[in-house]
């Protein structure tokens, strides 16, 4: 990597890797995003099964982590257009299943690429994307697929994601900055996966996660959510279904 200050590190190059990345997701994500069932059940599998796919961007000047990439390999023989609507949840479950069954993998899938808020706007998203693409190559996989979370969709919770991904800037690029960064790096948009992540909680849990109150059933706007959530008071159940965008980097 040309930025000498920043180095790509993994758990094998840096024994203190776990400590360095600890707490990063807490800083990066709104609280409710940390209550995704598939993520919470499987997160440990990343380092248990796919350690060589997990990396961080290490700021050697300040001895801390500026970004992190999490991915894994899976087997996908279908057409890209047929990738499941259950995006992120499907990919994570599938990768673990494939690994348990010792199925030969052919596809790289990234489930999280984050940059610490204090390191945003410094041109690090492009090196982060390149680092993930480098993993695809290093592992001898054909392509990199990502159920991508468009970073500014949360400002437009009433717009359907199918419309939003067609939005463009004046110079014809993808409107969403994160989508744009990937397209610039060579990615193609495949389609929306509408039920990529499912977050479910009681009314009390959602009140704690969001600092809002939910006195009646209905739809609510939640800061940081890409769509509105639906609260059902009778069932004491609040449901957020996050849509993501399947994109592909073909090498």
């Amino acid at each position: 990597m040309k930025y000498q200050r920043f180095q790509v590190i993994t758990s094998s190059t840096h024994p203190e890797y776990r400590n360095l990345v600890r707490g990063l997701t807490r800083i990066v994500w709104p609280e409710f995003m940390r209550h995704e069932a598939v993520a919470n059940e499987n997160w440990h599998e990343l380092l248990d099964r796919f350690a060589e796919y997990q990396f961080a961007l290490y700021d050697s000047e300040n001895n801390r982590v500026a970004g992190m990439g999490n991915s894994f390999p899976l087997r996908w023989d279908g057409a890209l257009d047929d990738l499941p609507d259950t995006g992120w949840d499907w990919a994570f479950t599938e990768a673990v299943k494939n690994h348990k069954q010792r199925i030969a993998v052919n596809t790289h899938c990234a489930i999280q690429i984050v940059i610490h808020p204090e390191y945003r706007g410094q041109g690090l998203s492009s090196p982060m994307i390149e680092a993930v693409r480098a993993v695809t190559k290093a592992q001898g996989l054909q392509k990199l697929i990502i159920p991508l979370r468009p970073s500014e969709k949360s400002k437009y919770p009433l717009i359907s994601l199918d419309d939003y991904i067609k939005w463009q800037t004046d110079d014809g690029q993808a409107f969403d900055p994160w989508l744009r960064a990937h397209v610039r790096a060579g990615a193609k948009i495949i389609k929306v996966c509408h039920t990529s992540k499912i977050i479910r909680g009681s009314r009390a849990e959602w009140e704690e996660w969001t600092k809002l109150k939910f006195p009646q059933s209905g739809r609510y706007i939640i800061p940081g959510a890409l769509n509105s959530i639906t609260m059902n008071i009778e069932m004491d159940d609040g449901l957020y279904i996050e849509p993501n965008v399947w994109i592909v980097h073909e090498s």
Partner: protein
Amino acid sequence: MDVNRFKLIAPPDLPNYRALAGDIADASWPEFMMHDPIANEHWHELFDRFNEYQFALFDTENKRMAAMANSLPFYWDQPLEKLPETGWDWVFLRAIEDHQNGVTPNIQSAVQINIHPDYQGHGLSARMVQAMGAIGKSKGFRHLVAPVRPNQKSKYPLTNIDDYIRWTNAEGLPFDAWLRVHVRVGANIIKPCHEAMFIRGSRAEWENWTSLKFLQSGEYVVAGALNPIRMNMEKDEGIYIEPNVWMVHEL
């Protein structure tokens, strides 16, 4: 905060009264709220016709204006339940019209009570409401009505205002902080006025007023707005209709 620190003042008490009051409005309102045409066209009438109904709270310690309020008198001989849906915009025009026609007023309406952000959370709002009622009482009026803007509704833009005003806190008082201030000093909720303010702008204006982009027709959640706004690309027009709540204080 020491209550004696704050002194009620009237427009003649300060040479730059209107500018200082304007600074408080600038600091507290989201930009789009400064573009209600009725307010912008007629604001000067408050001082030209109804000067004795305007007042502010002056912080004698820091020599600055901590809060300001506007109200006006009008004539109303029907049941309060019949106050119009067009709330704020209506009462402003009605008061001017009555004054122009030489109609003797018999009721007072609040137009605005605004606490500078630096002074919020110190109980000044209740004092401002009471000071406003004292003016109406000195004129011999029996009622102070107010098209109240329930501030916190902006966090619940998808909830109907008719439902929202019934939300209560653990003490059984209104959930919304501004509604609660009025109820605590003795006011009753009459009903919502669903079209209290009407703010219209081109797409470029709305992009300027908010930090958003409007790339297709539809509803958008705007920070600080009580309901979503509706953007129509073909007509190059975004419309925000603000609901308020008619409340009444017996004087």
